[in-house]
């Protein structure tokens, strides 16, 4: 049970203009684990992701990643992305003017140095890899299309696919099922579950039904710290959770 964690936040706090967005938060996740994070608006879910990905620097506390554990606090967003932490935003952000294929290609795990990118030539292995990824997220027939033409759900999958293309060890996914039809949700659940077999996946979600279907440990955030943690049944029966979140 107590395997070494891949990502560990310890006593992290951050405040914006006196408002404590994150308050002494501690959180761990193992290397092949699916975890859902729920919590009311303003609980600090997005801020927590901002801290992990280097967008926001915490006032105190530590963020350690990998073995041997390395602090993420001194790294830039792009460095953190390069060492294996990928993030999907709430609003699907794909590059709408470019083809689905080009979107995948940009995300594909490859050297990010400008010169390597400038002299990059498409190799067959990369082509195959993009096809496999597109198949995985159900976009293999859309590769030639401009990604702006995709439906909302397809854009979400493209973004998840791009995350997988980066081959990260930790995936942070913000509200992947927002605005999806029930069928699309099913598909998204399957993609995430499959991804979690080989890496850590953290899903922030409001939708309890969706979280239930993920069948994973759930962390409840409230006012910037962890309120409860455990199975979905455990947290939904927790008195304090019912008070602040479910029993509104």
């Amino acid at each position, binding site marked *: 049970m107590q395997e070494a964690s891949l990502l560990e936040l310890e006593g992290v706090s951050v405040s914006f203009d006196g408002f404590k967005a994150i308050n002494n938060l501690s959180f761990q996740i193992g290397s092949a684990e699916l975890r859902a994070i729920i919590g009311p608006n303003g609980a600090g879910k997005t801020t927590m992701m901002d801290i992990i990905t280097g967008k926001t620097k915490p006032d105190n506390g530590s963020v350690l990643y990998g073995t041997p554990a390395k602090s993420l606090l001194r790294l830039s*967003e792009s460095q953190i*992305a*390069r060492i294996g932490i990928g993030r999907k935003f709430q609003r699907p952000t794909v590059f*709408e003017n*470019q083809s689905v294929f080009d979107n995948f290609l940009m995300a594909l795990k490859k050297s990010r140095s*400008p010169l390597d*990118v*400038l002299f990059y030539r*498409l190799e067959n292995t990369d082509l195959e890899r993009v096809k496999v990824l597109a198949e995985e997220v159900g976009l293999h027939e859309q590769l030639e299309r401009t990604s702006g033409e995709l439906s909302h759900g397809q854009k979400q999958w493209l973004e998840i696919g791009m995350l997988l293309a980066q081959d990260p060890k930790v995936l942070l996914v913000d509200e992947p099922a927002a605005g999806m039809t029930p069928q699309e949700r099913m598909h998204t659940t399957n993609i995430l579950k499959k991804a979690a077999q080989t890496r850590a996946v953290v899903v922030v979600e409001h939708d309890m039904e969706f979280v239930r279907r993920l069948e994973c440990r759930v962390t409840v955030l409230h006012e910037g710290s962890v309120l409860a943690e455990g199975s979905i049944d455990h947290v939904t029966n927790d008195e304090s959770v019912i008070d602040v979140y479910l029993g509104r």
Partner: protein
Amino acid sequence: MKTAFKNSFIYKNPSVLIFLSALAILTIGMTILSEGFGVGLVSTSFIKILGKTLCFCLIAIAMDLVWGYCGILSLGHFAFFGLGGYMVGMWLMFARTKDIVINSMVNAPLPPTPNEIRDAVGSQIFGVVGGSEIPMIWMFADSLLIQLLLVILVPGLLAFVFGYLAFRSRVTGVYLSILTQAMTLALSLYLFQNDSGLRGNNGLSGLQNIPGLTEVSQDIISVWFLWASAIALGLGYIIANWLISGKFGSVVRAIRDDETRVRYLGYTVEIYKLLVFVITAIIAAIAGALYYPQAGIINPAEIAPIASIYLAVWVAIGGRGRIYGAVIGAASVTLISSWFTGGQIPNISLGFYTIKWIDWWLVILGFGFVAITLYAPSGLGGLFDRLVRKQVNEESK
């Protein structure tokens, strides 16, 4: 074999072949019609206007790369253009003055010492600003090779330092535009000073006279420069298309559309922006180095903030985000501008008021800009796109 062709640069960028052919036809055609090499139907001054226009097209390509593709609205690229001109101008002026001084001393009873020549050159060049000392920055002015290197190095270094500081601090959008305006204004004000070492508001002049080629007439030299400008523009066009057509272009356009997202893909956005900024500054500098020997004179007013704003107007009119759009925009606006302001069309007297085209041209340009923004948001290049697409659609029917 077929797929090899499909992956080739020309296949992916069909405009390159069309553009290079058009440029070649224009250059060869003008040479045949020129006074220097051909039948003399086209005046030397028009050849110079064309050559200068090609230089403007080249800097417009740079502007389109940095703004249209990378999303950095630089309003300071004319600073690099001007610096390129100054760097080559220093050699032109120094070497020519030196030739003149040596010639005038030929009949002196004693041959002049190097120091005497230096003093004479110094007082010839810097007499207008009340000095005769040759400033430090002219130490390489005698060497064409070094000054040509400086055409690339000086603007490149300025762009690097400026870009490094601005991009590292994540200055973007309108704030960055204002900073670039400040940069070109500061440079212009500095050069206006008499002790800047570059002759203050007099600038550098007589640049159309090429040292060592005093016997060659301007009719001939103008055609040479037309060719040089055309070759530079052609190369610039190819390089620009190469930069934007591959994965690098993909990343650069992605930075334009959503910088933050690109960061989370693991790309160090700042380095990419800096690279594009420096490359385009160097292209601008090369354009300037070819422009000023044709214009004959450079002074600090050339790099006033308004010049760089015009540059953005050309690219907007031509349609940003397409390289040929930038060329179409720069060429059409500068050619129409020189037509209106060159005195070819007579002023119209209404009795109570005379329409002077030199004044009214700016009004026309302003209305044109508004009209294009309203009715053809993707610019003249966009209209061109629509025509091509229509044809393709009709063919496929």
